[in-house]
């Protein structure tokens, strides 16, 4: 039901501005005959595959470095070589090897996986809705998912993580559905400002429900720490649970990337090029919910990755989503891994909420996007 609402409201996103798409490109496409094959459009969409390849390869190398750094830094610093040995020549008697394997490695990996998921979810949203402010945290996905988890913690403590993920998906659908539903009912459709406002209001509403629950069940500090987001509690169990979902989501978004590129040119063009717009929207909505929901279930509502990274990726490699989706994944993973390192280093014995670190980068960027608004 909620998915239907989301699909219908994605359907209404006409009036949003297309900053990335060249105006000339739009003109050429309009002037060309309707027999235009989608392949020809693809070739005209500005993209820089070489830079994209460099970013993906270089980014993966940097990610490897970041993960190693993340493992070696902490309450006790562990030498790089010990990290290497712990991974490849594991010795169960060494306590340092145990720390690396049981605590730090899953934490660093979870950061990479979840960062990629948030970034790709934002990338798909921005492409399909053609809204530069679309991202899981601004349009209520994070808030919905977090609310669902507050319900889990309050009513069903000790629930299996598998069911928690399911709740998280449902909550994500709820939050996104309300926000998109409300902003598309109004005349003029879901403009960026309307979506942002609805997102802020729905987040406030769901947050107040979560707070009410947490006060009643005396889980206040637990829930607010969890709301702050953090990779502190991640272990192998969580990684095993979320990685199939996120992997499926990433593969799915790559498969869909061509359609997303065409959709990002506008509904009329997409329809005239033979895209089944409703189908593509439905598939994208499901991908976004799966990626965002799984990510929030693992680390809490960490903001701004889904807003910032897709913009940077498009700036670097252009609007062809075949390239900007994998680049977003790599850059998102990098951002969260390094933000987590920052969270542990800044205020050393204590851990700073990682959401605050991403906000440090995200808020100036958000302000920059706000300035572009007319």
């Amino acid at each position, binding site marked *: 039901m909620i998915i239907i609402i989301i699909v219908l409201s994605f359907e209404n996103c006409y009036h949003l501005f297309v900053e990335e798409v060249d105006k000339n490109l739009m003109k050429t496409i309009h002037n060309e005959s309707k027999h235009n094959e989608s392949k020809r459009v693809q070739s005209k969409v500005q993209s820089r595959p070489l830079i994209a390849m460099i970013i993906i390869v270089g980014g993966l190398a940097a990610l490897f470095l970041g993960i190693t750094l993340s493992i070696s830094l902490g309450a006790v610093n562990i030498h790089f070589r010990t990290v290497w040995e712990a991974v490849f020549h594991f010795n169960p008697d060494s306590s340092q090897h145990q720390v690396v394997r049981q605590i730090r490695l899953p934490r660093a990996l979870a950061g990479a996986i979840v960062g990629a998921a948030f970034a790709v979810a934002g990338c798909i949203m921005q492409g399909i809705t053609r809204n530069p*402010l679309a991202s899981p945290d601004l349009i209520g996905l994070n808030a919905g998912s977090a609310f669902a988890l507050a319900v889990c913690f309050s009513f069903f403590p000790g629930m299996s993580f598998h069911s928690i993920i399911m709740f998280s998906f449902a909550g994500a659908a709820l939050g996104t559905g*309300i926000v998109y539903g*409300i*902003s598309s*009912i*109004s*005349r*003029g*459709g879901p*403009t*960026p*400002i*309307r979506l*942002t*406002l*609805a997102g*802020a*209001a*729905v987040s*406030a*509403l769901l*947050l*107040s*429900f979560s*707070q*009410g629950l947490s*006060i*009643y069940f005396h889980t*206040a*500090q637990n829930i*607010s*720490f969890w709301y*702050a987001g953090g990779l502190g509690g991640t272990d192998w169990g969580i990684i095993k649970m979320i990685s199939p979902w996120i992997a499926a989501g990433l593969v799915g978004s790559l498969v869909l990337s061509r359609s997303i590129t065409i959709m990002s040119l506008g509904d009329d063009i997409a329809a005239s090029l033979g895209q089944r717009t409703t189908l593509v929207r439905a598939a994208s909505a499901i991908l976004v919910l799966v990626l965002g929901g799984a990510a929030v279930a693992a680390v809490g509502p960490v*903001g701004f990755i889904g807003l910032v990274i897709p913009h940077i990726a498009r700036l670097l490699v252009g609007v062809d989503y075949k390239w900007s989706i994998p680049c977003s994944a790599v850059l998102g993973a990098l951002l969260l891994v390094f933000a987590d390192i920052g969270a542990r280093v800044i*205020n050393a014995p*204590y851990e*700073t*909420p990682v*959401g*605050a670190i991403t*906000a*440090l980068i*995200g*808020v100036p960027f*958000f*302000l920059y*996007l*706000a*300035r572009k*608004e*007319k």
Partner: protein
Amino acid sequence: MRVVVYMSSIKRNNSVASRGSLRTITTISILFVLIVISFIISMNTGIVRLSPIDVFKTLFGSGTPRQELILFDFRLPRIVISILVGAGLAVSGAILQATFRNELADPGILGINSGASLAVVLFITFFPLNELSPIFMLPFIALLGGSLAAVLINILAYKKGYGISPSRLIITGIAVTSGISAALLMLTVRLDPRNFEFVTIWLSGSIWGTNWKFVLALLPWILILLPFVYFKARTIDVMNLGDYIAAGLGTSVGRDRLVLMGTAVALAGSCIAVGGGISFIGLIAPHIARRLVGPLYRALIPTSALIGGLLLIVADTLARVILQPAEVPTGIVVSMIGAPYFLYLLARARA
């Protein structure tokens, strides 16, 4: 041509006013009665229930010492604060909606609340509250934080050649608010559990100052600023017509806007210092008031003040009742009522 249209809208407003004065008086009287009723109900509710007769007896000086303690030292200051905070926030929202000519403006959305909260939390972090702490300082601190946030948002939303557009201002407000929340988060998790609990409850808007000291700290602000705004009602009406018309009618738009915004920030800041992070009242109350008495600020200001006070007493009473014996912060109840109303407004707003 445009001037003619505007002038006719002024005329229409005037005729609305003359027809509506009876309506305004009726509305205000009804609201007043409602406030008195909810005042009595609120006096009755709580963990210890007192019957209305007991409440009256105690109010007129013939209750038991225990009843007097509950009424005069716990419930009465809290109710008075609810009314004052509600009225202040509502009027602040009414002013902001006129100065920005945007019906979705509200001190919470515009980041004033969060700036004030940050300042107060910083203050509490360095000077923990106790018997000796200077409570009269809190409204000033909140005012300082709120004004800084307001100035920051205005600067960031300003664009050379375009000025400040309402939509850019609102998105900037949301962005600044999220930045301040991140800063608050960093501050609060470093507090020890006891202070942490206090600050979270304060941020979620519990009317925590159940003490006459807080009433005295807040009262001067409300008593001075509300009459001042009422006195400025005519200016606000003119401003509502748009900058060109307002300038043409002889007001100095820039200065008036600055004065009015300063007043709105001062009202919101002092209310937040005492009431905690309560949002949406400044949005809803003027809206309901506009529906009841029309758009003229001479009628709108007292009506929205009364509606704000009424809403907050009701929310505060509910907060004490719904999850008994646990007490929900009032701000949470206000959000539960306010956010859906905001979404409803958003859904029917024109493009």
